[in-house]
C-alpha cells in the first residue's frame, strides 16, 4: 500500500511564481531603470493582459460570452476622469474609486441580459456598450463627443507620474492574474471549473450556476474597468469612441482564443503575441486585421485550446497549476 498526498504545486509552477513575482517587482521599479516609452508599453501590455484575462474568466470559466466588455473599460475610465478632473479627487485614489461604477453597472446589465439565450446574450452586451457610448456622447457633464482631458495630472512631475503608472500596472496584473489564480485555486475554483466543463452537471452537483455567473460577471467587470482606468490615465485624454471602442472586445477575444481559452498561461502568451503583432504589423492596418480575424476564426474552429492547448499536449508544465493531483509518497505520480 502506498501513501498519497494531494499536491497542486509543480516545479514549473514554482519557477513561474518566482518569475511572476520578479516581473511585478521589476515593473514597480521601472521609473528607476526604464525609459518613458518602455513604461508606456508595459502599461499597455498590462491592460491587454487584464482585459483578456477578465474575458477569459467570463467566457472560459463562467461560460458567459460577452462582446461588449468595452462598456466597463469606458465606464470606469470616465468615472475616473470625472472624479479627478471635475471633483478634484486625487487621480490615483480616483482610479480605485472609479471601480465602483462598473461594479454597480454590472448588476442591472446582467439582470437584464441573462434572460437572453447564449449567443443573444453576447450581442446584448454589445448593445449595452453602444448605448453607453451614445450616453457619453450626449452627456454635457462628460463634455459630450469632444471628450475630456486629465489636466490635473500636470500638477505631478514626470517622475511621479511614472511611479504611479508603474505601480498601477503592477497592481493591475496582481489583481487580475493573481486574483484569478487564487480564485481558481479556492473552493470557488472547483465550482467554476466544473461549470466550465459541464454547466448542467455542475448544477446537479449543487453549484448555483446563476449566482456564480452573476458574481463572475461583476468581478470581471471590475477587473476590466480597472484596466480601463489605468489605460486612460496614461493616455490623459478620453473620448466616447476611444473609451467604448469595440477593439477592446476584439483584442480580448483574439488574445484568449489564440493563446488558449480556459488557461492563464494562454492569456499571457496571446497578449504578448497581440502586443508585438500590433507593434510590428499595425502599420499594415486592414490587412493585418484580416489576418487577426481569420486567426480567431481558425482557433474557434480547429484549435479550441489555442497555442497553450497545443503546447500542453506535448509538455505538462503548467505555470499556474490549479488542478489537484495525487502524489504517491514513494515518489511516483499517480
Amino acid at each position, binding site marked *: 500500500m502506498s501513501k498519497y498526498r494531494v499536491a497542486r504545486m509543480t516545479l514549473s509552477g514554482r519557477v513561474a511564481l518566482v518569475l511572476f513575482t520578479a516581473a511585478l517587482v521589476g515593473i514597480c521599479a521601472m521609473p528607476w531603470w526604464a525609459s518613458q516609452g518602455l513604461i508606456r508599453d508595459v502599461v499597455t501590455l498590462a491592460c491587454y493582459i487584464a482585459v483578456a484575462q477578465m474575458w477569459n474568466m467570463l467566457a472560459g470559466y463562467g461560460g458567459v460570452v460577452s462582446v461588449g466588455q468595452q462598456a466597463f473599460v469606458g465606464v470606469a475610465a470616465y468615472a475616473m476622469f470625472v472624479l479627478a478632473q471635475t471633483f478634484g479627487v486625487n487621480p490615483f485614489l480616483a482610479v480605485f474609486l472609479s471601480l465602483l461604477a462598473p461594479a454597480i453597472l454590472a448588476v442591472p446589465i446582467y439582470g437584464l441580459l441573462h434572460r437572453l439565450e447564449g449567443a443573444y*446574450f453576447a450581442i446584448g452586451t454589445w448593445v449595452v456598450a453602444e*448605448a453607453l457610448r451614445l450616453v457619453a456622447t450626449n452627456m454635457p457633464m462628460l463634455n459630450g463627443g469632444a471628450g475630456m482631458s486629465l489636466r490635473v495630472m500636470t500638477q505631478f512631475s514626470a517622475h511621479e507620474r511614472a511611479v504611479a503608472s508603474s505601480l498601477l500596472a503592477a497592481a493591475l496584473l496582481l489583481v487580475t492574474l493573481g486574483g484569478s489564480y487564487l480564485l481558481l485555486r479556492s473552493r470557488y475554483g472547483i465550482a467554476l471549473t466544473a461549470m466550465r466543463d459541464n454547466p448542467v452537471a455542475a448544477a446537479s452537483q449543487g453549484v448555483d450556476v446563476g449566482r456564480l455567473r452573476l458574481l463572475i460577471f461583476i468581478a470581471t467587470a471590475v477587473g476590466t474597468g480597472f484596466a480601463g482606468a489605468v489605460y486612460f490615465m496614461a493616455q490623459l485624454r478620453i473620448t466616447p469612441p476611444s473609451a467604448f471602442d469595440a477593439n477592446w472586445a476584439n483584442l480580448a477575444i483574439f488574445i484568449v482564443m489564440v493563446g488558449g481559452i480556459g488557461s492563464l498561461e494562454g492569456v499571457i502568451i496571446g497578449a504578448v503575441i497581440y502586443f508585438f503583432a500590433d507593434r510590428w504589423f499595425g502599420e499594415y492596418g486592414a490587412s493585418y486585421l484580416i489576418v487577426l480575424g481569420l486567426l480567431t476564426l481558425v482557433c474557434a474552429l480547429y484549435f479550441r485550446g489555442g497555442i497553450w492547448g497545443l503546447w500542453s499536449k506535448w509538455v505538462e508544465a503548467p505555470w499556474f497549476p490549479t488542478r489537484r493531483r495525487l502524489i504517491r509518497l514513494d515518489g511516483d505520480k499517480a
Partner: protein
Amino acid sequence: MHWIDGIVQGVLLGGLYAQYALGMALMFGVMKIVNVTHGDLVVLLALIGISLANVAGLGPWAVLATLVPIGAALGWLLQRALLNRVVGNDPLPSLIATFGLSIALQNAMLVIWSADTRSLSGGGIQQASISLGPIFVGVLPLIVLICATLLTGGLDLTMRRTRFGRSLRAASADVEAAAMVGVNPRNVYAAATAIAVGILGFAATFQAMRSTVAPADGPFQLIFAFEAVIIGGLGSIWGAFAGAMILGISQAIGFRISPGFGILAGHLVFLAVLAIRPQGIFQRRA
C-alpha cells in the same frame, strides 16, 4: 403633426430594419446561433451592388435581382463551409468564429472599397414622394415597406405551408428527431442561411439607395436586426417584423426629440422590453 410624421417615418424606417431582422430570426429560430457577420453581409452585398451599377451600368432593380441570388449563394456557402461545423449547444464556437470572420470581412472590404461612404443611384426614385393628407411620404421608403411586408408574409407562409417550411420547423423543435424522420439537418440549415442572406440582398439594395454604406457599418445593422428580433419575440417571423417597426418608430421619435438621441432611443426601448417583457412583445409562450 410633428409626432404623427415621426411615427410614419419610423414605420417606413422599420421596413428596412425588418429586412435585416427576418433572416436573423430565421437563423436563430432554426439553429440557435447568431451570425455576427449578418450586418457585414448587408454592407458587402451593397458594395457589390454599387460596383455592379458603376461597372456594368446596372439599374437599381437589376442590382436587386442580382444581389438576392448572390446573397443566397453566399449564405449557402457560409453555412456549408463554416456554420455547419459550429452549430451546437455551446454558443461560443459559432459566436467567436463569426466574430473573427466579421473583423476579417470588414477589413477586407476596407482594402477593396476603401473607407468612403457610397450609395446606389435610384434614377430619381429617391426624390419622389406622395402626400398622404398633410404628410409627405417618400416613394422609395414606401416601396421598402411594401417589400418588407411581402417578404415577411412570404416567409411566414413558406414556414407554415410548405414541405421545406415544415422540415425547418421540425429541425428547430428537435433536430435529432427531424433527422430520425428523414430530414437532412445540413440541407435545412444551409437553406435557412441561404434564405436569410438572400433577404439581405433586398436590405442591401434598399440601404444603398435610401442612404449610404461604408465597410465599417455592419455592426450597426447587426445590432438593429438583433434589437428588432428581441423586441418582437424570439423566433417569430411576424414578431421580427413588428419589432422592426417598434425600433424604427423609437428611433424616429428619438431623433425628433434630439438628433443625437435617435439611435439611443432604440437601444433604450430594447432594454425596456428586456426588463418588462423579456420574451418579446409578440411572443405568447414564456
